[in-house]
């Protein structure tokens, strides 16, 4: 499927536009972590816009420890066969060969993710070289723009995956969106110094100055556990929401998945979020950030 037989040769700019195109189509959606074809079906039936195929959800990766790698090929293939919505999968930061495997599998979106154990502690994958689009995590505007410069077609907050605690995603959204507002308000001659401070290319800083937003969609991830959490991310400027452990680590995944989809569509309508929240079983257990050692925070991975 990935031999390019149906696609013509693409220029870099055209390729990037096609990659960002799929990110545009996922706006307003919920992307759910799944570990089995059965979970993928539950996610699709609940109205997920895409699924993320994983061996373990982040909460289990955190609990079990050890090295977390790309999922088994058989898991991803089984999920691809089960659903018609886009299938995403994760690679370790900097692991260009895992990324090539996912591309050869015809995965729709590759997440170069801090949830897995990094393969390279200095460099991320050069994502322009791929036909598959990439999503990367970011804590602030500089990190987001560096990932976009490497070819990321979608940015998501890192949040703190597997924590069931929304506070880090909120911090990262406020940071990215707040810095964008500041850049937009700057005078032109101030942009170079800002680019230096952000450690980001001037062309991308200029784009933010002119448009007040990233050149790619800006989604939220990391710690979403309730319909209200999803709506909060939208309120703060996220254009769609990833839910990792929050659905299948709760007591009633089907209903929670549907409720989060509903709250995401109607994020600015409290009556709808109330209706979505009513009668739900217990959410996943959460972790208070103060009890996490700095070295155990997944968000610190990536540079």
């Amino acid at each position: 499927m990935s031999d390019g037989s149906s696609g013509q040769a693409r220029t870099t700019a055209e390729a990037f536009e096609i990659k960002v195109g799929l990110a545009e189509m996922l706006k307003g959606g919920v992307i759910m972590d799944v570990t089995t074809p059965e979970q993928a079906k539950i996610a699709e039936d609940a109205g997920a816009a895409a699924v993320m195929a994983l061996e373990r959800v982040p909460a289990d990766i955190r609990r079990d420890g050890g090295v977390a790698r790309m999922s088994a090929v058989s898991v991803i293939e089984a999920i691809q066969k089960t659903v018609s919505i886009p299938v995403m999968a994760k690679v370790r930061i900097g692991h260009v060969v895992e990324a090539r495997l996912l591309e050869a599998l015809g995965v729709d979106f590759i997440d170069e993710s801090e949830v897995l154990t990094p393969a390279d502690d200095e460099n991320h994958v050069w994502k322009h070289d791929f036909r598959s689009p990439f999503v990367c995590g970011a804590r602030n505007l500089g990190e987001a723009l560096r990932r976009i410069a490497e070819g990321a077609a979608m940015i998501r907050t890192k949040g703190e995956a597997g924590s069931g605690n929304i506070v880090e995603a909120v911090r990262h959204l406020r940071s990215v969106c707040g810095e964008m507002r500041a850049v937009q308000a700057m005078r032109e001659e101030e942009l170079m110094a800002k680019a230096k401070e952000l450690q980001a290319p001037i062309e991308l800083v200029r784009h933010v100055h002119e448009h007040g937003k990233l050149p790619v969609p800006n989604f939220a991830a990391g710690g979403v556990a309730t319909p209200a959490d999803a709506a909060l991310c939208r309120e703060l400027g996220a254009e769609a929401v990833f839910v990792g452990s929050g659905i299948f680590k709760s007591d009633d995944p089907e209903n929670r998945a549907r409720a989060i989809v509903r709250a995401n569509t109607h994020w600015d309508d409290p009556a709808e979020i109330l209706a979505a929240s009513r009668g739900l079983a217990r959410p996943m257990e959460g972790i208070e950030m103060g009890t996490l050692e700095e070295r155990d925070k997944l968000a610190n991975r990536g540079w």
Partner: protein
Amino acid sequence: MTRIGILAIQGDIEAHAAASERVGGCTVRVLREKDLDGIDALILPGGESTTIAKGLARLGLYEPLRQFAATGRPLLGTCAGAILLSREVENHPVETLGLLDAVAARNAYGTQVDSFAALSDAGSEAPFRDLRCTFIRAPQLRDLGPDVQVLARVEGRPVLVRQRRVLAATFHPELGEGPSPVHRLLLALADEAAGPA
């Protein structure tokens, strides 16, 4: 000013709003039956057709949308929107509106690595000739009924079709910077439906 409603369950709603405004329309988001009052045209955006179909069912919007079409006001569906307009879906079925006499094949070109951009065929209708079309996990429209007119083709396959005031594109005319001739046609159809001013 022509008021264009955009179904706002999920998808590239913002891109359609920008494209509509570039050709001189103003836009409103549609999530409820009452949002259909006072709009002159409706867009079903690109996105995931299963997600949008489930939203339509939950919000009870299938019948109101069919009634909207019955008033003669125009609709445009792109990609997922085109699937929802069709009479049936041949693979991974979703409930459709049945406003376009065609069968939709979902993800007909493959996965995202098979997504592509191409110019429309020279034999397409005038404003849609040599139009740059972006296909994202795109569907194909097959078994077109006698009332369905093909406005543009890519590699011989219909990519933009019209049945009276229903328009369906398997590509994304809303993406890109320039004024979209497809949105321009939607506005013209809305003005025609509204009758002489």
